[in-house]
């Protein structure tokens, strides 16, 4: 009965024990179908990848694995310059993207907090970049970055900013920042809208009281608003961090990892190894390296952020 939160004085407390057992099982029966399906489409494939990761297996050489090679694929992945470059690029993109998107998002959220006419329309429009498929954002920016007449190089040139001769996406120096910018364009509005919604829940009288006590806007932000939206803030940070870590669509459309390996992300390198070069064994090993990294990151988050939830 203890698992039943409904009913202060259950009317069925004297029911026979078989019925009681059925009742206790009921919630698990409700969850079971979703768990079974999700295990079938996530856990099972991952174990398949785990097995494949110990074999030399290239689909271009035949449909079957060509032999057990132990940790050979892992060794090859971890010693390959391309893979390590992907790790570095992914971390650079993830950390800088999360920081910049959350920072600008917070600034815009504070701007939206001013109750002025037209603000709600602006808010409804602002979220639009986030609604677009990341791959379509890739199309959009490929058009905007085009070196032969795209809007962004033209604007930069007008502003006197020097542009690489090979174009923004064609230079090892500017390609990764260009991908970062496209991601920021799409997801800064997300941070802004969510943080704005959280800021709304801060009781206005608390802010008013602080203001009457002579607190500056900065103090109010740091001492009152941010602590009160802490939960949402950490949720936004986690979501952006994980999604940036998984960046794939933008790279696929904008640079295919180039020039050189300057914009390779883990996601793109994995795709290219497995589904362009059909190196299933090696790609499976990379899959598991990424799975371990992602789980470590989520684990850290669960321990430090979700510990005190609910």
């Amino acid at each position, binding site marked *: 009965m203890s698992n039943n939160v409904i009913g202060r004085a259950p009317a069925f407390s004297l029911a026979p024990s078989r019925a009681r057992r059925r009742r206790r099982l009921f919630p698990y029966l409700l969850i079971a179908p979703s*768990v079974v399906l999700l295990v079938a489409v996530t856990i099972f494939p991952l174990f398949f990848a785990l097995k494949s990761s110990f074999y030399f297996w290239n689909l271009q050489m035949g449909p079957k694995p060509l032999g057990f090679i132990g940790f050979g694929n892992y060794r090859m992945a971890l010693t390959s310059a391309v893979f390590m470059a992907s790790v570095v690029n992914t971390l650079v993109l993830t950390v800088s993207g999360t920081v910049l998107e959350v920072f600008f998002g917070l600034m815009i959220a504070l701007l939206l907090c001013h109750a002025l006419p037209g603000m709600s329309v602006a808010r409804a429009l602002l979220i639009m970049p986030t609604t677009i498929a990341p791959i379509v954002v890739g199309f959009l920016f490929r058009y905007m970055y085009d070196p032969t007449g795209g809007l962004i190089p033209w604007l930069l040139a007008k502003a006197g900013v020097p542009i690489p001769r090979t174009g923004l996406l064609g230079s090892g120096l500017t390609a990764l920042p260009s991908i970062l910018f496209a991601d920021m364009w799409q997801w800064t509005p997300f941070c802004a809208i969510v943080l704005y919604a959280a800021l709304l829940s801060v009781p206005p009288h608390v802010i008013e009281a602080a203001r009457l006590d002579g607190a500056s806007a900065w103090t109010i932000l740091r001492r009152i608003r941010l602590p009160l939206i802490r939960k949402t803030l950490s949720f936004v940070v986690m979501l952006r961090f994980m999604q940036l870590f998984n960046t*794939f669509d933008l790279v696929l*459309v904008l640079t295919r990892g180039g020039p050189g390996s300057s914009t390779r992300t883990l996601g793109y390198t994995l795709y290219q190894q497995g589904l362009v070069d059909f190196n299933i064994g090696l790609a499976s090993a990379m899959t598991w390296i990424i799975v371990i990294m992602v789980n470590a990151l989520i684990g850290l988050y669960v321990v430090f952020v979700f510990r005190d939830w609910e």
Partner: protein
Amino acid sequence: MRRKKLLLRTGLIYAGLILVLLVFIGPILWFALLAIRPSETVFAIPPVIFFTPSPAAFQSTFVDPGANRHQLVNSLIVAGGAVLLNLPFSFPAAYALSRFRMRGGKNMMLWYLGLLMAPPVAFLIPYFVLVSRIGLRGTYLAMILIMQTITIPFSVWLMKSFIDEVPVELEEAARVDGAKWPRVIARITLPLVRPGMIVTSMFAFVFSWNNAAFPLVLSNQRTATLPIGTLGYFATAGATWTFIGAAATAAMLPPMIIFLVLDRYVARGLTFGSLKG
């Protein structure tokens, strides 16, 4: 003096707002214009803002010969199918997690959340091999099934937040009157959470519509979704930019309309229900 300061402040806020909208909405408009441009103005320098709009690109992509038309239908089938399939799995789970204190209930919620954070690309290789092996590659079923890794966890989270809002007292009363659980759920809970279910389904539709990684690997020429079909234009020499503009505009519109309709729920949907706006 004070009035003047206030006016200046308001002016600054609006200036900031206009700048923000210019940066975030301007590119969308510029890109959408691409679809109705005469092709000689696509990369004109300086950029051409005023031109005679032409429906030619929409005509060729969606009507005649309409190469993208059946991809649009494919996108609808996959996203719509993914949402429909997800409901009988996610609603009972959300209900159980909302109403019962179960051992490991919180961990279950975190597991669903973990799946939402997982990199889709990490699953692509096993999916590619396994789906090919069972002969489902290129079928809608394969895509709809794999989309459940997104739609189920998302729907469980968001729907749970809506079920939490239905007062348990109503269910209790029916229970005391002797009604069985399935009947209570069907007659009392379900009608009350229907709006929440519709909101959840619309967001789930957007997330599934916007996923490109799975169809990229699991579809074939016949079942390719709209973004994957559009990707094909880049492979041809001299990308046909007005066609890309037209196809991409069609891919952008449904999510935009859904988000405008759901305006009140946007923050809630984007945080999987954990933030009730």
